[in-house]
């Protein structure tokens, strides 16, 4: 209760203020820009090392401005930010925004309006990135990164099991059925404990393509994007398959969070679905591995996850001017944007930065990452599908995450999706 009080009072105050305001509610660019020098605080989920290069470059270019970075672990990030932003905590100037959450954060008055940068964003980023950072025709955050997913495979285990590994050619993409069969062979004679494992086994980001590839839709429909649609045939079929991979032991139950990557790095699984950041992380593992495009279902349509973090400014910040300078440098400036990707290997969202960055991906871990660049380019042009834009996305992700966890642990998928529909309808009642 102690914790609920200040948050509630301020949340109510903020909402009343936000709703009673002019159409330009939020903090328009003309508002008080604050001091020109000083220290700004930047909050995100990645390790501090990730942002050291961009902070260094920014400080060199802007003498008198210092940037301090605070890390909040991914699992607690959204809830902690919700608490701090609703308390109008001026201790946060800039923060990372997960793209599908832009709508709700903007609706709640947690983001400064950046619409005067609209033209620049239109030319410097992809159309998808441009769209997902908008809500009600206004620009609320600037895209920093983009992402995709790869199928990583354990070369040694597949060779031992006499399985020809998949190629990096997107035209010869494997199907999930092929992965399953090869994974079982690797478990029998390749020496791995498991056949297949997803890096974020309970995350909508990674599981959306399974259902969408079977024509199941994103799970959200309606004019206001507040109608659940997770009981389509595509969703049911995809979740049947997904639940069965755990029931049969192809994938392990009970391992989650940050314990998934090490399972592949230790050589315990034949196939692993992961992101560009893994291209470097797995480089230090002792096993021999390669990358291939993300599979789709037989007869399905190849689709891949996309999108990543954007940067936004807290309207409660008293240093709007400095915060803007940093956000613009880390996204709109190609060199600055590139600097955000030099430690953690993730795709820069700025198109000029992307052009310089993508070709390097082939060499992130020697010959093991050969083909990663071509896969990345192909997926972003042909198969990338964004997470749905809805003011109810935060609740959607929460409810679906729990449904995926239960399906993973053996609950009947059709019944659990029906349950999720009920929970979504309940959760969205308070939004409508």
């Amino acid at each position, binding site marked *: *209760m*102690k914790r*609920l*009080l200040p*948050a*509630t*009072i301020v*949340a*109510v105050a903020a*909402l*009343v203020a*936000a*709703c*009673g305001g002019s159409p330009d509610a939020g903090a328009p660019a003309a508002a008080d820009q604050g001091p020109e020098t000083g220290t700004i605080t930047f909050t995100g989920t990645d390790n501090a090392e990730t942002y050291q290069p961009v902070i260094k470059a920014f400080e060199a270019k802007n003498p008198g401005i210092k940037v301090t970075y605070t890390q909040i672990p991914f*699992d607690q990030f*959204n*809830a902690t930010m*919700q*608490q701090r932003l609703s308390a109008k905590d001026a201790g946060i100037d800039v923060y990372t925004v997960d793209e599908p959450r832009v709508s*709700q954060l903007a*609706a*709640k008055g947690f983001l400064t309006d950046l619409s005067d940068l609209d033209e620049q964003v239109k030319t410097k980023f992809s159309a998808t990135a441009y769209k997902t950072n908008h809500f009600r025709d206004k620009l609320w955050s600037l895209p920093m990164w983009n992402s995709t997913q790869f199928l990583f495979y354990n070369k040694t285990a597949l060779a031992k099991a006499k399985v020809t590994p998949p190629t990096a050619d997107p035209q010869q993409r494997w199907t999930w059925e092929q992965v399953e069969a090869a994974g079982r062979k690797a478990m029998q004679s390749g020496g791995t*404990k498991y056949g297949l494992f997803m890096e974020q086994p309970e995350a909508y980001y990674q599981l959306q393509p399974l259902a969408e590839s079977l024509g199941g839709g994103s799970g959200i429909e309606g004019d*206001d994007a507040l109608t659940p649609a997770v009981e389509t045939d595509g969703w049911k079929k995809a979740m049947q398959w997904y639940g069965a991979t755990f029931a049969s032991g192809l994938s*392990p*139950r*009970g*391992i989650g*969070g940050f*314990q998934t990557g090490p399972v592949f790095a230790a050589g315990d699984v034949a196939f692993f679905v992961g992101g560009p950041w893994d291209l470097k992380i797995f480089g230090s593992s002792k096993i021999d591995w390669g990358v291939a495009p993300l599979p789709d279902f037989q007869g399905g349509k190849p689709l891949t996850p996309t999108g990543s973090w954007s940067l936004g400014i807290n309207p409660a910040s008293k240093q709007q001017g400095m915060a803007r300078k940093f956000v613009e440098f880390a996204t709109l400036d190609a060199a600055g944007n590139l600097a955000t990707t030099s430690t953690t290997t993730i795709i820069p969202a700025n198109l000029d930065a992307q052009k310089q960055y993508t070709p390097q991906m082939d060499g992130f871990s020697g010959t093991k990452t050969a083909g990663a660049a071509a896969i990345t380019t192909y997926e972003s042009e042909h198969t990338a599908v964004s997470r749905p834009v809805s*003011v109810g996305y*935060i*609740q959607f992700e*929460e409810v679906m*995450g*729990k449904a995926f*966890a*239960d399906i*993973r*642990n*053996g*609950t009947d998928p059709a019944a*659990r999706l029906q349950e999720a529909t*009920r*929970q979504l309808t*309940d*959760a969205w009642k*308070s*939004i*409508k």
Partner: protein
Amino acid sequence: MRQRQGLIALAFLAPALVCLAVLRIVPAISAVVESFYTESLLRGGRVFAGLGNYTDLLSNKDFRQSVGVTLLFTVLVNPIQVVVSFLLAVLFTQRAAGARLWRTLVILPIATPPAVSAVIWSVIYRPDGLANGVLERLGLPAQPFLTSPSQVLPSLIVLLSWIGVGYWMLFLIAGIQEIPAEVREAALLDGAGPWRRMVSVVLPLVRRPLAFVLVADTVSNLLVFAPVQILTKGGPNGNSNLLMYDVYSRAYAIGDIHVAQAEVVILVALTLAIVAGQFRLLRGDQ
């Protein structure tokens, strides 16, 4: 003179009273008031909803399940922890070699933050973790632990007892050591065996600390949060969705602060009812 003394006493008490008011009483009142309101994110505006949030909660299947799970958990975890702490306290007050060392080992988990304990146990409970390793050595089949709807609550009880039992044991050890030596000697002279001495001498004489442990343990177990958040997120199928975690996820994940406030009020009422019941039972014994 006396009035002046009173003022001085009040001045000394003031910091505590202010904290009590600001940190406890005002939030409590605010929670009750806010639980009668509702607001829409899209349309905005805070509207008086009367008991709407409460009826919404009571008609919500997940909430009702959460109450059931919390009650089942309370009925199981408290007797287990109190009995085990009492037995350990009796054991560690015997004059035996290494008793102090053992006592220290049992108390040690208190020094570990709950979040760290939860992370340690997440590795123990993994399908290829320590617990299944031990079972395998004993020739027993592997267990699903946190991923099974029926084993998740017992698994959490084991984890929480590992943290809590040592702490509650300390109070009981202090109580046992308070028992006058003459009473023990008299019992010995009367030829009472160890069991008789424990049931007829020690147990009645540690009633006060035992009552405190029972009540304090019950309250702390009704507020369990970190292990659920870190290990199970309330699953599988809501079978570990304790009320405190449900409040948190409603307030900060789902973002419906008003319904969450109503749930807090219900949780406090439930806690008071259980504690009042315990006091009644304890008094009835006398």
